[in-house]
């Protein structure tokens, strides 16, 4: 199936959790925040959150800005 990850189409196995996605992206334990369909999902809930087709996922971090 496909989700939209940070604005781009991203293939994903059915039934995969947000936690598995973050691990696959090598972002586990990094300073990131995640939202699915514009709802923030706290890290403690990543393992339980199973991604659905066409889910829009935003993974963000802090960068330099004024």
């Amino acid at each position, binding site marked *: 199936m496909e989700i939209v990850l940070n604005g781009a189409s991203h293939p994903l196995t059915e039934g995969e959790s947000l936690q598995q996605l973050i691990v696959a992206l090598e972002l586990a334990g990094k300073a990131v925040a995640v939202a699915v369909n514009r709802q923030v999902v706290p890290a403690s809930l990543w393992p339980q959150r199973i991604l659905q087709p066409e889910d829009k996922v935003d993974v963000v*971090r802090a960068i*330099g*800005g004024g």
Partner: protein
Amino acid sequence: MDLNSIPETGQADAGLTIAGKTYSSRLLVGSGKYRDLEQTRAATEASGAEIITVAIRRVNIGQDPNAPNLLDVVPPTRYTILPNTAGCYTAADAIYTLQLGRELLNGHKLAKLEVLGDERTLFPNMPETLKAAEALVKDGFDVMVYCSDDPIQARILEEIGCVAVMPLASLIGSGMGILNPWNLSLIIEQAKVPVLVDAGVGTASDAAIAMELGCDGVLMNTAIAGAQDPIRMARAMRLAIEAGREAFLAGRIPKRFAASPSSPMAGRVK
């Protein structure tokens, strides 16, 4: 603020209190436009700033996940990190961005709100800003809000419950300094929350002038990061903020279109 309640001579400056926390530095800095993270770190340190704004942006998927992160060089353990909504043109995007920022900083409520109206001028869209401010305050954020230097807008933002109002001196990144000190004075006179100049500061004198007018603090980014020697300019700004604040507390002489000799007339040789 009450311009009649200035502390007695010699009393130490009580510091800048925002949302119940007191800071000794009245200089707030952004973290953008530096050459690299090391320069960001060094300039921030030289500035003496305790509050640093950061932008919230999508991670570059596929980029080296072990590359150093901004928060490694300006850690939340040492600084108060202020997530901003730079690049947001709608209240919805600003609210969403700050919700992500709050999650990123483990529930930290202090946030900088800006909702822009125009890509060329980066002037704030005040109707969208008011909308976002209301929703964010309701959602428990402590909102420091970038706004036009319109005293009515500033008052409405304060009534909504923003913890600080931050009128622009001039356009973001323009270095034009304070274009309307009169409006700024009107805002300062009426405000019961801290007033910080945000946007448009160019050099040290601009920061000093802001403090002399009675501002509680100044937020700047380009003035430091864009200077030829950012570390040196960060130091200059630190001194300027202190000098301007001291001058304000000292109570300046009025401007008069008349001379007043500094030496007595009596006893002159003829």
